[in-house]
């Protein structure tokens, strides 16, 4: 299985220094694990791709289990999508993985969708786990949903999958792996700056979202209304007995389909 992992030029969320994006390193881990699982059948092969003016600390991805990194060098302002789409189409990848959003750039999370449209591939969002499908040419995806829920999907390859931060942690960094890894630089054809398909609107103060029914009621009722609105259902227990609270939590977890108890 040929897998491509898209790597973007990120910044550390606190220091602001150039850094790989954690969720993309998680995607890399999923790719490496998947390639290892497929190793018996057709041989796994993971390639990293970055389009941009320079790699910077993205070479660190080589220390996180990546063996081969392709750098599509282009102007800093150029739209990376055309260069990536060309390289991905030419590479013949079975699976393309991306983070659900970058970190420190536009962070819009739109690039995977742009690429999927350009390549004519199905896109699955927010994978937390990947496994080879039972039928050849398919992939099992565990999709992360809101509030810890999971959904299992089977996708026919090739496909583009974005990875959620609920996926397993990145493989630990190995300095020598970075030394060993291979970087291939290709010149990307000049491309215009990205023209995001967005419209600008004037700022509008957002209305307060406290439920109308609760206005004027007691503080407890307002709290209940607010939290119930935010959590979309569920029960609010105020100062319950510990046993009762534990029972409620377990029942809730079971309702979500999560195994309760070890």
């Amino acid at each position: 299985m040929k897998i491509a992992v898209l790597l973007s030029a990120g910044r550390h969320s606190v220091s602001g220094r150039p850094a790989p994006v954690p969720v993309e390193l998680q995607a890399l881990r999923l790719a490496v694990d998947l390639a290892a699982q497929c190793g018996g059948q057709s041989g796994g092969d993971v390639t990293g791709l970055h389009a941009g003016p320079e790699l910077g600390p993205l070479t660190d991805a080589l220390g996180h289990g990546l063996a081969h990194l392709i750098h599509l060098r282009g102007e800093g302002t150029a739209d990376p999508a055309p260069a990536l789409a060309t390289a991905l189409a030419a590479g013949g990848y079975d699976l393309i993985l991306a983070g659900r959003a970058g970190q420190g750039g536009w962070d819009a999370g739109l690039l995977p969708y742009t690429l999927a449209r350009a390549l004519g591939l199905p896109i699955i969002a927010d994978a937390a786990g990947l496994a080879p499908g039972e039928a050849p040419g398919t992939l099992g995806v565990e999709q992360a949903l809101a509030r810890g829920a999971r959904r299992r999907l089977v996708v026919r390859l090739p496909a583009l999958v974005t990875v959620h931060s609920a996926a397993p942690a990145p493989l630990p960094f190995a300095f020598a792996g970075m030394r060993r890894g291979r970087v291939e630089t290709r010149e990307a054809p000049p491309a215009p700056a990205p023209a995001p398909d967005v419209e600008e609107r004037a700022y509008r103060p957002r209305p307060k979202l406290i439920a109308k029914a609760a206005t004027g009621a007691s503080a407890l009722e307002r709290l209940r209304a607010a939290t119930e609105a935010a959590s979309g259902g569920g029960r609010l227990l105020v100062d319950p007995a510990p046993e009762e609270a534990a029972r409620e939590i377990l029942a809730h977890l079971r309702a979500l389909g999560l195994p309760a108890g070890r």
Partner: protein
Amino acid sequence: MTDLAFLLSLTVLAMVLLAGALAMRRAGLWRIGRAAKVDWTAGLIALPKRYLVDVHHVVGRDRYAARMHALAAGGLLAGSGLALLGLIPALGDIRLFWWLTALAFAAAFAGGAMVGRRRLPVKPARLSGGRFQILPLLLAAYSGGGFLVALDASLGGALWPLGLLGLALAAVGGLGLAWQIDRGPMRHAFAGAAHLVAHPRPGRFNGERATALAALDLDAPRLGVALPEDFAFNRLIGFDACIQCGRCEVACPAFAAGQPLNPKRLIQDLAASLQPGATNAAYAGSPYPNARPVAGVGGPGLPIVGAGAMIHPDTLWSCTTCRACVEECPMMIEHVDAILDLRRFQTLELGAVPARAAAPLMELRYADEPGGRPLTSRTDFAAGLTLPLIAAKGEAEVLLWLGEGAYELRYGRTLRALVTLLHKAKVDFAVLGEEERDCGDLARRLGDEASFQRLARANIDTLSRYRFARILTADPHALHALRNEYRDFGGAYEVVHHTAFLDELAAAGRLAFGALDEARVTYHDPCYLGRYNGEVEAPRRLLDRLGIARLEMERSGKRSMCCGGGGGAPVSDIEGERRIPDIRMAQASATGAGIVAVACPQCSAMLEGVTGERPAVHDIAELVLMAVEKAGPTPARSAQVPA
């Protein structure tokens, strides 16, 4: 000279030849190691002093063992040497000469008896069994037999039936001892001598602490140690020097906590790995507590660490790098260096750090701080205090290095006390503020030498831009890195720990103390201050100035026990039966003290984490501030409180 005496001399000659051949074979195995720079001449000249002074200093902590060893080894060498000289006819014909020989063998016999009494009928847990258990018998047979033959010779053959019996005993015992030279207990005799000559840290014999880790060449083809031949040859000699006395396992905090580390077993596994087709089956000492299963096979060209090899990775990550084993080792073996070399390979080549240690190392790479916290908030603990920035002043007499503890709420109180004291003593000081990066200690101990070197170079670069006379820090880990380990990268600084600095201020009369009517106090030595840097006096002197009764724990000073916070152990978090800080706190409670005085952010965090009834934990700086506030008129702080 009697015929029997002549035969005894020939027996000794045979022993020497056999031992020599076996020793050469073993020494041939050392040659697989990497080259290392060794000053052979200086080492050989220094050998008697290293043996008689430095080794004896450690052995002598156990007086029984010291006497036992002096008699057994001294008698054995003297008796055998004399018996060998007896081959010279001019000497062999003197009866007095054989008297002397008999005396030497008698001493060896007494030593052998002491070896036996220590092991029989019940062997202490720290001593190894197996080949070691028959050692007293061999010693007794050889020295007793030698004594009888020499006695007979001194009397001109009057006791020949006894002499004949003696010769038989001496031959069996002597050849048995010689046969043990390459794998048995006697290996330590020649490997130990070679180890003392070619010791990887010769500074230890010249009064230096010599505890800094050696820098790793990051361009080397293989980083760290994977195979036995990746160790330098003089490290391999060191492993063979082990006599399995078990003093290290008694001192090891991870062993005490039931984590899968036993320094003695570790060294034995490493020594066993030298032998082609090696297994760990011959080992007969205490195991790794709660040992994780391993195949127990190895040899040159085979990996040392792994479930299919000799040593399980959990064993490596259990180590707190406290150096207690090194401090206790009479053969001066460097256990911690070996563990670090093995960790470096795991981290740098395989990326096989413990799961929870990966995140702090990643934050260090991109945020220069293991918690991923902003460098600007390092000084948040000092809200409301004046904390001069060196960037604003350009120079200061004392640069205060805050360290990682500054981010922690509990330790922030200690640093607040220290800053307040500096103001009260009118010290010209400043901090780096957001320019201070992590010192790299955590990265280095976890084997991430690449991150350590990057941080060291970055910090040295920052420090080179400012002028200061000394660096003051409350963190012994930072102190050790800045004082000893930055030297390899071009950073030489005078670094002073806050306990020594406050003691200086007090001695100069710049701080006045009132009497503290606190409970009695016991001082817990941080490993990186006491053992690594030899500073055990200043903190005690300072405590004594405060007028609190000071009690000593069962283990203190350079032989103190670790709190469990070093070497990245808190982030590696290898499961054991007990927690190391609980064990240490129990020792503190046993003194009857009401306060444990600490001098390190790690110790403070680990000991504060102990639950239940226990003494209070205070950094020495906090106690000093209490005493100063008692002395002064009204403390400035209370004046600021609005009415």
